[in-house]
């Protein structure tokens, strides 16, 4: 236990504790993304990018699904506009994440808001939400530490993919998607603590399957909204008692 007189030391050590918690929480999620980083790196080399260009994609864009879609379009010599529109559709879910964190970061400095935004990924969002639920407050230290950890692992695995380059045979057919599915299952199932969350999970899952038959591109965002609205409309016992 830190002594009560050393207030400055106490807050530094509690920041350090938060940082450690964040790294421990995001680690399993970063693990699942390693094969994707490797795939992004090796695919970029196969499409004809230089190693520097390939690494810059992960350093600057930092969005696995959008990067993979863009590389596929580059490989098929698709247009810039199709690349941009697919990037937007894939990234549109991040608009929701920024809305969720809005009240927590609104009073922060421009620099801090930019940094949190840059490192805002599915995984960082998930662990930071869990932190908020548990501690009843938002922590920029937690958000940034988990985000940066994820960023570093994403870029190291991209680098590994660049080095391996064309020597990785048929990586696309190994079923790497399942790593993402396993991670998200591990995140979602513990979140189901009441009826309304259960309803939002079931409806978004069902609509994701049905919609992806008709409109592959927009299925994700449409199913998300359906799930959110159905969850919202479901009355929980706790909220009636309130």
């Amino acid at each position, binding site marked *: 236990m830190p002594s009560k007189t050393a207030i400055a030391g106490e807050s530094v050590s509690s920041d350090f504790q938060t940082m450690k918690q964040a790294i421990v929480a995001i680690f399993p999620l970063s693990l699942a993304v390693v094969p994707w980083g490797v795939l992004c790196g090796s695919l970029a080399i196969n499409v004809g990018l230089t190693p520097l260009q390939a690494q810059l994609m992960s350093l600057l864009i930092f969005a696995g699904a959008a990067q993979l879609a863009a590389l596929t379009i580059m490989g098929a010599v698709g247009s810039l506009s199709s690349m941009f529109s697919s990037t937007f559709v894939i990234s549109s879910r991040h608009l929701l994440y920024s809305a969720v964190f*809005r009240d927590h970061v609104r009073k922060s400095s421009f620099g801090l808001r930019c940094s949190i935004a840059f490192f805002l990924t599915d995984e960082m969002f998930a662990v930071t939400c869990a932190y908020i639920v548990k501690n009843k407050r938002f922590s920029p230290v937690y958000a940034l530490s988990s985000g940066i950890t994820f960023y570093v692992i994403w870029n190291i695995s991209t680098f590994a993919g660049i080095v391996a380059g064309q020597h990785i045979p048929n990586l696309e057919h190994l079923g790497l998607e399942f790593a993402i599915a396993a991670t998200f299952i591990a995140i979602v199932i513990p979140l189901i603590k009441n009826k309304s*969350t259960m309803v939002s999970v079931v409806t*978004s899952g069902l609509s994701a*399957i049905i919609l992806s038959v008709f409109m592959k591109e927009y299925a994700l965002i449409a199913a998300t909204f359906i799930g959110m609205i159905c969850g*919202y409309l479901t009355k929980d016992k706790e909220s009636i008692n309130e």
Partner: protein
Amino acid sequence: MNDFWLALLGMTCITFSCRYFFFSTTVPFKLGPKVSRLLSYTAPSVMTAMWVPIVFLGHQESGSDFITSPFLIAGIATVIFSLLIKNTLAVVIFGMSVFALLKVFF
């Protein structure tokens, strides 16, 4: 690949803008209790809309049958395991191992 630099710049701006949009103090948007409640379902809805198609439609891309698809079997096993064990790392490793084993044996 002259367009590459343009593509890189454009995509960087698009992904960053989506992540920053509601952090902007100039966007007039007030989070009332209703919107907050709606947004509280973001994480479960988005993540489910991502994992469910992989588990239930994964067999289409790999060309296996629905019932014997490693995506389906390992997916359901992961869901059951995550109900029993609260440790995320254990669940992820368990799910990926089951999937890898099924891939090797089928």
